[in-house]
């Protein structure tokens, strides 16, 4: 089985996982994070992915994968049956993010959510100067080139957590692949990673 090189934000997510954990990765794409966690930390991994291409890649990597929509099947996972439930770079594609995160916290001891930050100063400045929809450096793709996504900022996510009473246990901010402090993170960070409990 091929050993994947991990996307920088996934490296930061992986560091939060302890050896031997039971991990559910929602919107796990080609399964590279799960494969990495199985190989390096001996986790028991499960993935959910919508695209057939992703599902076939996961099976190729030897990862347990369920094809499906996150709004449909999460209820099947028994309460607290995972140590960590991961939602990495998937939240912009969800119709009901609050529901999915609630389900993550029900099925898991904790939820790890990462996303590209559209609040980054380059996005703000670009929008002001050019009048074009901002392209986040954390996910550099134009509005018409990808599946329908809803941009969000670190501030938006914090508001959601407050509204839904999700407790933020830890937050990690990245500028490119480097960690940065929590000062003006909504302006400076290109990627945010939240641990919720």
């Amino acid at each position, binding site marked *: 089985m091929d050993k994947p090189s991990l996307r920088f934000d996934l490296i930061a997510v992986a560091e939060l996982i302890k050896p031997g954990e039971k991990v559910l990765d929602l919107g796990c794409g080609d399964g590279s994070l799960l494969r990495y966690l199985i190989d390096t930390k001996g986790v028991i991994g499960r993935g959910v992915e919508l695209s057939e291409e992703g599902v076939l890649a996961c099976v190729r990597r030897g990862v*347990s994968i*369920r094809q*499906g929509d996150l709004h449909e*099947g999460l209820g099947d996972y*028994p309460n607290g049956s995972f140590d960590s439930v991961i939602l990495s770079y998937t939240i912009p594609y969800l119709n009901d993010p609050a529901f999915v995160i609630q389900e993550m916290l029900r099925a898991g001891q904790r939820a790890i959510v990462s996303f590209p930050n559209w609040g980054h100063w380059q996005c703000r400045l670009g929008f002001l100067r050019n009048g074009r929809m901002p392209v986040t450096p954390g996910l550099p793709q134009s509005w018409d080139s990808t599946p329908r996504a809803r941009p969000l900022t670190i501030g938006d996510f914090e508001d959601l957590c407050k509204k839904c009473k999700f407790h933020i246990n830890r937050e990690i901010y990245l500028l490119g692949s480097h960690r940065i402090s929590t000062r003006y993170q909504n302006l400076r960070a290109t990627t945010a990673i939240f641990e919720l409990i």
Partner: protein
Amino acid sequence: MPGSVGIVKRQSFIFAEKTPLVLDNGEKLSPVTLAYETYGRLNEDRSNGILILHALSGDAHVAGYHSPDDQSPGWWDDCVGPGKAFDTDRYFIICSNVIGGCQGSTGPGSVDPQTGQPYGLHFPVITIGDMVRAQHYLIDHLGIDKLLTVVGGSMGGMQVLQWTTNYPERVRSAIPIATTARHSPMLIAFSEVGRQSIYADPNWNHGDYYNNQSPKAGLAVARMIGHITYLSDASMHQKFGRRLQEREHFGYDFETDFAIEGYLRYKGNRFTERFDANSYLYITKAMDYFDLSNGYNNLSAAFTKSSEIVFLVVSFTSDWLYPTYHSKELVSVLTTVGADVSYCNIQSTWGHDAFLLEVETMTGLLTNFLNRIVSEFKIDC
């Protein structure tokens, strides 16, 4: 390059000679013959056995040829052989026929030892559970304690699921394809139309026809209905369209005008050369009775002992006979009981037949899944 298993031979396992096989309906069957074929070699610790189970009209001949001038190979030759998904260089492949059938196993066309005459309708009504009960004696006979995988599509998939609920300790992984955990009313409806067409054939004679003409017309119509349900609107457009069969203009008669008519007539007639009408009745009945939640409070309860098995559930987007909701329900239930279940809903226009036709996708999926099972359970093969 993937190859063929070459010339293979059907084998027979005869059992229940002294102690009869007790069936789900309480009746007894003795003796019982089960036809099967095997390819490849069983490894030293007998851990590389894969049991393949066939659909309604299938048989034990899953790959290779029966003779050098055999026109067509076994029914899943695309996926079974050296270098193929079920790689006979690595795995010991077993394909078992079902009781109630007519391809070498005990069924309504077999001679009833009590009377010396073919059973006909005196043959007991069997279930998918009975088919699997018989198969587990075959696996005992082959000296296999735990199968690496049990795999099958359609009715084969029902047997797979029955294996995982009835003999969970005998199965490491399971691959139910284009199937269901319980037959739907629509499926029962199609079965019944097929059966009615057999009953309506005067040659059927309440199942007593083995010394006379067999009800070929009735069986052919049943098979035609079956074939319609295995295709899809899109695949009929693709394969036949409104093309005419061997004529350039409408005949304005009742001969075969359209290619799709010719296809159905051909398939229907060919089927009567190899299949027994009574077996068609018994096997469709067994499928109609199939509901794994029977005897339990719900479907999850049936799978509580199956949580150690690694599942790969496969469905196809255009399969309207076993629509994907069947597979999704199964995956949902298996997830609830904590089983390790992978699920893939393959994009295809081929309808229910897709499980035999989407060779490239299936080969990748099956090969990779089996590689994972081999590595996780440290199987020597």
